């Protein structure tokens, strides 16, 4: 089949839509995640999304719902257990390791197709069916809607917490809400790039954007563009040679990051 024949396929189109939606959500959340130094939290959350997905496989329900349940649970646990900033790293480490272990146990008990198991860790976007797509679109709209309401105080709390507190911004409550939003987005990303590679969509594009601009608005726009290029571009590149989607998504994402680092180093950070 030629490249264009492949594009006609239903599952390829579904995958492209899923990737585009995900790129938007991950791109918008990314700069906030990076500013709040939550890269490790995202990774920990995605491991629990994996656990949830594995439990769903075992129970015979949709992996999408399992992943969602796992990562929201992770977000709430992290919010409750790491009340102090200094605790956060170790709490994530402890939860992540346990969640991963449980996930492996559940996969061992699961008797179905082996590719389903592998897909949870490394992504299998071509396996996204229309039910998953609906869930993905609805969840994404919900995340973006909530974010639109809390964006300004959340940004304030992220960059300038002391003064935000003094202005009556509910900094703690916002951080729990944001953790849940990140949890939802993480669960969605797990289906596309897999639990191990969520950072390629949630962190790398934002980190790249923040290398080349200091304007919060421009950083967000660039982060969305980079995430879209990585997600959609990664799928397109993977079609003809038949390579794993996640490998190409992460590769595109990383190349963008390197270019932005280069640009940032050469001209200093412009506005």
């Amino acid at each position, binding site marked *: 089949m030629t490249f264009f024949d492949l594009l006609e396929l239903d599952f390829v189109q579904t995958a492209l839509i899923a990737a585009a939606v995900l790129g938007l959500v991950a791109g918008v959340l990314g*700069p906030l995640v990076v*500013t709040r130094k939550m890269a490790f939290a995202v990774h920990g959350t995605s491991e629990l999304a994996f656990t949830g997905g594995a439990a769903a496989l075992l129970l015979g329900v949709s992996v999408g719902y399992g992943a969602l349940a796992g990562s929201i649970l992770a977000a709430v646990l992290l919010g409750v257990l790491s009340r102090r900033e200094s605790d956060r790293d170790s709490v994530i480490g402890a939860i992540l390791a346990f969640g991963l272990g449980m996930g492996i146990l559940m996969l061992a008990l699961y008797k179905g197709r082996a590719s389903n198991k592998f897909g949870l860790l490394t992504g299998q976007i071509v396996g996204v069916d229309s039910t998953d797509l609906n869930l993905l679109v609805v969840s994404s709209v919900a995340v973006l809607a909530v974010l*639109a*309401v*809390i*964006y*300004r*105080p959340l*940004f*304030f709390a992220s*960059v*300038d917490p*002391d*003064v*935000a*507190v*003094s*202005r*009556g*911004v509910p900094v703690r409550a916002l951080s729990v809400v944001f953790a849940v939003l990140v949890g939802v987005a993480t669960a969605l990303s797990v289906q596309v790039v897999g639990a191990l590679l969520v950072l390629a969509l949630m962190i790398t594009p934002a980190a790249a954007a*923040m*290398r080349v*601009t*200091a*304007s*919060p608005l421009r*950083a967000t726009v660039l982060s969305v563009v980079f995430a879209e290029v990585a997600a959609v571009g990664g799928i397109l590149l993977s079609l003809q040679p038949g390579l794993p989607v996640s490998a190409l998504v992460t590769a595109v994402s990383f190349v963008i990051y390197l270019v932005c680092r280069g640009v940032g180093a050469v001209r200093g*950070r412009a*506005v």
Partner: protein
Amino acid sequence: MSAISLRGARLSYGDRVLWDGLDLDVEPGEFLAVLGPNGSGKTSLMRVLLGLQPLSSGTVSIAGGNHAIGYIPQQRALDQSMTLRGRDLVSLGLDGHRWGLGLRGRRERRVRVDAAIESVGGSAYADSPVGLLSGGEQQRLRVAQALVGDPGVMLCDEPLLSLDLANQRVVSELIDKRRREADTAVLFVTHELNPVLPLVDRVLYLVGGRFRVGTPEEVMNSRTLSELYRTPVEVVRVRDQILVVGAGACEEQTHHLSAEAVS
């Protein structure tokens, strides 16, 4: 009507009383310095005024409520890679606490933010990443951030800490200018009185549950401070500076003041 009013205010954590029976009125345009060693309840007083800490008993009121407050924190090193320009920092002081994206009213916001930046002489670096600015530049923008909301009360929490003398002067003069021009009440928490001494109308001195309110002359003398610290303390005036000498209890002051006397 007073800008800040405390009546019979008491703050205690369990058995530990930070202060009790505190009556304090700060009038519009008045500059009040709050002094005292670490742990004397300066920061807690600030938190009470910001509405973050309830009083154990007594009442507190701020004319115009919480949103009439402009708050200036200590200068802290900001993350160099942070995606935030000077003007973004100032803009957050105007409406960062409001819900929504803030897409409406962008033109008006820009006018007010520009005016606030201009008033602290920060226009040249307002578009630079804040993490790359010097401590003095950051603190000027902090003043603009507090001013942009047109506050009736300014609460300043050690805003001169870790600034050099020239920048201490610039920042304190900006705060002084505001209170003279707009009759804004200033409550200025510090452990170094000298940089702001010419501006101070009254001093609130807190030590170990005891306190004294009065003009610098009334409070900053050997007798009053010896009573507060319950140990002999000597206060010396050298030119236009006040030096507090003696007693381990005020080691902090001695250290800072003598360092300053040398420079």
